[in-house]
């Protein structure tokens, strides 16, 4: 299994390198590097958005959550799809019409001056860094889990370096195509697994339902279709509402997703991208339900859980490499795929159970490819915030030639890459699943209010934007620090997701900051912004 998946992964990497080589010649200007010359079509961009969005968190994480917690895990899938309605109705076309390279461009379009742009750039960097570290640590444990010879550290460094090569040389064009191919592979793997699950039940949805309602777990059965398996207890209700809010508004603030709308030529293409993305992402999340319930019923939580308890054994092996082959053989004999992290193995285990080694290898290779594509998208978003917003707009005040910009953008990609590698290696052993949730909460509390209010409220002022983004940022970060995910049972703040508090706070602070000041300069530019956003007049082509 290991060798087959390494070969498949190598094929993907090689393909991506060929694309990078081809794209390198077209990424020598800022327009090329950040936006692929705005020549990506609506369909292509839709696939790329899907590839950017369907992360390992979705594929491995959601499948595992549904396998363990059934319907409550499915809540993530619903939120992540419905979130695209926010993007479609409020942001996609205005972003395409008023933005150049970064989210901060749009927020600062009429809220000119350094303050707004600086904070918007910082929130972008924070959100992408959280998201990226979560992906890379996930990649590390996944690779280590499937190919035990490669330690987590090497896996993280490897993924990081590959991603840097793509972004550094291939820019947005290579990133786009890597994402498109990965979206196709991920859908293919999900369809294959789902069909295998349904075939097991002889394509009877009734049989599948009955099995899901009586999934075996440690000696008793549970109904995976009922609610409350994940969000339980007196505060579970608030947790699920908080999460729901963060999911549905968070996508509207994720820089690596929003940046994709700068790569298409027209507002119509931006709209088409969302529509393709929603079709693909929706189908994918429906498939995760089948895969998750399939893993829960066929592999069984007991089995997925049993692997869990042998983490001790793996730790022992890592410390005593000389005995590893013997111990690994023993573990393998007992039917173990040597694990590290909790629920993330549901999809590969399901593949192993239903499709045998080749399907498992394919699923594992797709999971690597997934992480690589998402991380590349994040890197380019972070690099553009660094180079375009912080360096070009703030430090150099809009001066400097094309060569300098490209140089700075590439340097930024390198810095971002190394920073995320170092952080990820440092955090490799802690549970980072909550980082993705945090990225969504921060995005929904900072970028989303600033973008939505800036595009729709004439009175919205610079003070308001700064207050809103700072309040959203500080409250979401602060609440996470005192939440159960960080402080355990001594948590001061009882909810795992800060969204329920920090999102309203972000909006309210933005509104309050606006109401106590007047900003005639920004108000005067609102007419221009509205005409541009709604007609595309004067937009970058």
């Amino acid at each position, binding site marked *: 299994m290991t060798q087959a998946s390494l070969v498949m992964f190598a094929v993907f990497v090689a393909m991506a390198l060929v694309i990078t080589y081809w794209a390198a010649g077209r990424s020598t200007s800022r327009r090329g590097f950040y936006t692929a010359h705005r020549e990506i079509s609506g369909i292509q961009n839709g696939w790329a958005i899907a590839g950017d969005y369907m992360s390992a968190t979705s594929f491995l994480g959601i499948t595992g959550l549904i396998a363990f917690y059934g*319907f409550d895990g499915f809540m993530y899938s619903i939120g992540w799809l419905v979130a695209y309605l*926010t993007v479609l*109705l409020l942001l996609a*076309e205005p972003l395409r019409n008023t933005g150049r390279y970064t989210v901060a461009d749009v927020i600062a379009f009429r809220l000119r001056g350094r303050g707004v742009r600086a904070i918007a750039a910082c929130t972008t960097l924070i959100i992408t860094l959280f998201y990226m570290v979560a992906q890379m640590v996930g990649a590390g444990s996944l690779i280590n889990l499937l190919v035990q010879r490669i330690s987590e550290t090497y896996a993280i460094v490897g993924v990081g370096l590959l991603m840097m090569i793509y972004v550094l040389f291939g820019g947005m064009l290579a990133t786009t195509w890597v994402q498109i191919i990965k979206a196709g592979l991920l859908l293919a793997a999900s369809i294959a697994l789902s069909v295998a699950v349904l075939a097991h039940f002889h394509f009877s949805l009734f049989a599948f339902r009955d099995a899901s309602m009586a999934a075996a777990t440690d000696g008793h059965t549970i109904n995976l279709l009922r609610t409350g398996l994940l969000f339980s207890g007196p505060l579970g209700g608030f947790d699920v509402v908080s999460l729901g809010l963060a999911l549905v508004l968070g996508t509207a603030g994720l820089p690596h997703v929003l940046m994709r709308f700068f790569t298409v030529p027209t507002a119509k293409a931006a709209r088409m991208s969302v529509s393709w993305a*929603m079709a693909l992402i929706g189908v994918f999340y429906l498939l995760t339900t089948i895969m998750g319930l399939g893993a829960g019923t066929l592999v069984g939580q007991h089995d997925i859980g049993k692997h869990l308890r042998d983490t001790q054994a793996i730790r022992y092996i890592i410390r005593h490499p000389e005995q590893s082959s013997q111990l690994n053989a023993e573990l393998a004999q007992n039917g173990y795929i040597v694990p590290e992290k909790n629920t993330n193995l549901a999809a590969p285990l399901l593949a192993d159970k239903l499709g045998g080694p080749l399907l498992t290898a394919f699923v594992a290779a797709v999971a690597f490819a997934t992480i690589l594509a998402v991380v590349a998208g994040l890197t380019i978003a972070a690099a553009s915030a660094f180079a375009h917003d912080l360096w070009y707009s703030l430090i150099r005040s809009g001066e400097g030639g094309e060569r300098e910009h490209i140089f700075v953008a590439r340097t930024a990609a390198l810095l971002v890459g190394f920073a995320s590698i170092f952080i990820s290696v440092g955090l490799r052993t802690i549970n980072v699943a909550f980082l993705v949730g945090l990225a969504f909460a921060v995005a929904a509390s900072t970028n989303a209010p600033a973008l939505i209010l800036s595009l729709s409220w004439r009175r919205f002022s610079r003070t308001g934007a700064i207050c809103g983004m700072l309040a959203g940022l500080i409250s979401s970060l602060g609440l996470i620090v005192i939440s159960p995910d960080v402080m355990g049972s001594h948590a001061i703040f009882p909810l795992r997701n800060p969204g329920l508090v920090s999102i309203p706070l972000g909006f309210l602070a933005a509104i309050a900051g606006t109401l106590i000041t007047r900003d005639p300069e920004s108000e*005067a530019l609102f007419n221009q912004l*509205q005409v541009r956003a*709604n007609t595309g007049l004067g937009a970058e082509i």
Partner: protein
Amino acid sequence: MQHHQLTASEWDALANDPEFVALLRARRRFIVPSTIFFLLFYLALPVGIAFAPAFMNRPVFESLSVANLFGFTQFVMAWVLLGLYMREARTFDERARKLVARAAAEFTR
């Protein structure tokens, strides 16, 4: 149309142009109610799960519960609203294109 340098008063004139005002109103008439609708429709699910779990777990159809069916309905809702907006937006495109063409003719220098 690249680097369309309009003056502030020209932008203001366009923003107050009756056709633009009508376009903006038409867009808002679709976007504002549908945004409110989908947010309420979506948030009803977590809120229902949180505060009316007994009702949400009541079997209604082929032993699937209210929550199960409501969950899948969210997918249908998202796709239907997407389809409605895509249809509606075609008329917006047409109107925007006319406005841009007129502005280009009016303000060319």
